[in-house]
């Protein structure tokens, strides 16, 4: 194990007040430490000097909860491919490096403090249709509905999304299409998800627009930044599902209720 001497430029901001970069020297950082452990070390040093530690979101530190959200040297989650900030290790850096650390930036993700952002918009998009309406206790036997391995595996590919928001931070338009398409795509590609497919698609896309995310212009920076390597083909599918649902909606089909029978 060796030690690194680094220089950090860290974004500091209190709520809606304007923010700025703070220069922080970071000598003697073990190269086996994770990026967040490096931040822990920095914070310990700041606290001992009576200064305000850097606030950042983190929890599981094993790349699955999606809480960590740092823009490192301009790239969401930093330089390692398919890796969240918490799983990025300092051996990816060299002594003498200057590292820029910022929050994920998007109008729909307001900064709360320093590197912490509010990603409530993602929850609200999910609430606008990202579910299958099944009551607890109602279902049939799990094996009564065979689902081909290819379909199930594809749904799982989409379901791996951890909701971190790197796709939004990577996009020059701050579009949330990769996130929304993965969430809608998982359910829209499964047989259980068919009855509500149109309603779900319209609901989620409209909520996404309402939250202030930008439009997708097919540059695919999102896919490159995604720590779970979610494919942009889900965006293609969402566009298709949306077109179908929007046409039906225009003719009143998705709103039409079945009659009460006679």
């Amino acid at each position: 194990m060796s030690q690194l001497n680094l220089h950090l430029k860290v974004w500091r901001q209190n709520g809606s007040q304007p923010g700025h970069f703070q220069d922080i020297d970071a000598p003697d950082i073990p190269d086996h430490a994770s990026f967040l452990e490096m931040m822990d070390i920095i914070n310990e040093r700041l606290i001992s000097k009576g200064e305000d530690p850097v606030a950042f979101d983190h929890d599981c530190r094993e790349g699955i909860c999606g809480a960590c959200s740092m823009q490192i040297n301009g790239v969401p989650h930093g330089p390692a491919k398919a890796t969240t900030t918490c799983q990025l290790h300092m051996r990816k850096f060299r002594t003498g490096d200057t590292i820029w650390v910022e929050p994920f930036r998007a109008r729909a993700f307001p900064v709360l403090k320093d590197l912490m952002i509010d990603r409530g918009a993602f929850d609200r998009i999910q609430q606008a249709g990202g579910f299958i309406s099944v009551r607890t206790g109602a279902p049939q036997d799990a094996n009564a509905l065979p689902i081909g391995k290819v379909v199930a595996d594809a749904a799982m590919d989409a379901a791996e999304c951890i909701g971190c928001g790197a796709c939004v931070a990577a996009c020059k338009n701050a579009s949330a299409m990769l996130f929304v398409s993965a969430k809608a795509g998982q359910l829209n590609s499964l047989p259980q998800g068919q009855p509500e497919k149109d309603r779900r698609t319209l609901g989620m896309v409209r909520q996404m627009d309402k939250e202030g995310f930008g439009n997708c212009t097919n540059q695919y920076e999102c896919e490159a930044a995604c720590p779970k390597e979610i494919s942009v083909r889900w965006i293609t599918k969402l566009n298709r599902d949306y077109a179908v649902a929007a046409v039906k909606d225009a003719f009143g089909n998705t709103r039409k209720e079945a009659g009460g029978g006679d």
Partner: protein
Amino acid sequence: MSLNSNIPSGPMAMKWSTHKQDSKLINPKNKRKFTVLVVGSGLAGSSAAATLSELGYKVKCFCFQDSARRAHSIAAQGGINAAKNYQNDGDSVHRLFYDTVKGGDFRAREANVHRLAEVSVNIIDQCVAQGVPFAREYGGMLANRSFGGAQVSRTFYARGQTGQQLLLGAYSALNKEIAGGGVQMFPRTEMLDLVTVDGHAKGIVTRDLVTGKIESHAGDAVLLCTGGYGNVFYLSTNAMGCNVTATWRAHRKGAFFANPCYTQIHPTCIPVSGEYQSKLTLMSESLRNDGRVWVPKNAADCGKTPDQIPEDARDYYLERKYPSFGNLAPRDISSRAAKEACDDGRGVGPGGRGVYLDFAEAIGQYGAKTIAERYGNLFDMYERITGESAYKRPMRIYPAVHYTMGGLWVDYNLMSNLPGLHVLGEANFSDHGANRLGASALMQGLADGYFVIPTTIANYLVNQKPGSITTEHPEFKKAVENCTAQTKRFLNIKGKRSVDSFHRELGLLVWDKCGMARTKEGLTEALNRIPALREEFWQNVNVPGSGDFTNPELEKAGRVADFMEFAELLCLDARHREESCGGHFRSEHQYPDGEAKRDDENFSYAAAWEYTGNFSQPTLNKEPLTFDEVHLAVRSYK
């Protein structure tokens, strides 16, 4: 005080159906008048909140994370057990029940475990209907894998991310109810205290982690779904935010804390590499389906690279000691075996605290591609953390704190001894006894939330006048004042040491004296040192910033303060239990071959501790455990 577990009468296999028949009903119109507070949004919390809302109750759900979807259930890797017998390999509800009671080393409550095994099959149906993408075979049927402590294949899984997928399923159900207006969600909100009125749990005090505002919420019942206390050890596989505060605060208000000494040390984690380390990472137990655990036979070989150690110089100690379960021996047994090998000087890697988990044979047999399909994400994670490829050389693993079987005492209705306070999932004590089998935590969290509490909560609520207590009640004001005062106290200490430095010191002490092997002497030493450390914490901790805004150090201080108190109860319970069982191994109580020696005559009970106002002298209440179906036997996996 005598504890009434409210176990229904009748034959074991009929208890739950009888109880469902006998449980009270509340008519739909009246359900709307009841407010239920659900603290925590993991598998237990999300599933309970969603289901109670579907039934018509008004629900408020709280989590400290920024989104309900980030609760630590998300990190469970391996799978979820269910007695579906889709493999036709002889599984049944009874066999899952039997395996779980035996796996828990005969320290769980039989009736609860049987119910768990019964509803396990409904969980899978529910999750599939929600769109959880479980692994499937080419014919479209659900796939299964094997897990430790079982000789049938009953574990359902979604790659190495089963917890994530199950939680996202429960989160989607929760979202459906939030959208419908039945659940009000409070993210970034931490519970600081429980409010009791005339001995009944009627509300909670919370802190908004963004604005710092301390508020209270009143409800007709409170559900704690707040997980385990593994972070008392500082280093564990738990998320950084996992804490004991909710259950500990409830304990201080009168709820009994049961069996805290039952802690699970998971055998397959990435070893500690340095002092800066903030957490330990689990490598799923499913790896033991194909990985072989070994250390060098001779301590002299430990410094060599694994490829320099020939086959006949390796000790595949699990296969040698437990030929019928081999590498799939249960967690407590595998962990202790790893510790023994390292204590024997045959550990590998830095500090000699590691053993090999070797995939060479499986890669030779099935090819690297198949192994990558099965465990690719785990191999990738291992490489990111250690910089080594497990395709080329064996993983190094070592046991780490993973799960806690102890928790607040609950009866068959999942209600604690405080009326109205219900406890679900890892936060309660009931189903896993002294050791939890792999793939059973997810099962329990969802069983409690989807299927048990929606039935049993009515037994309490039916006798309550809905909305009779509001936050105007003086008990609420008092509780808010206490929490506000504690916040001020933290900020005014202005000491020299950071919160983390205290947490690390406490964790090392508890790990050293109350970890994988415990002795009376060691525990006594810990019990002497903990109060002194706690005293120093309150004199010398440095919590910067203010209480009126986002302040992660203040949040940590509150959690560590509670761990400082809880650690004493943990060690007291471990010292009082003069036997070895499951995750609780007392070095004084073992067979000549090193296996755990239970004392059924004297310790076949759940130890439910009552707070007396003095941390060093809690009162012990005992719930005797009887075993009518599964006969007490020495637990053997040989």
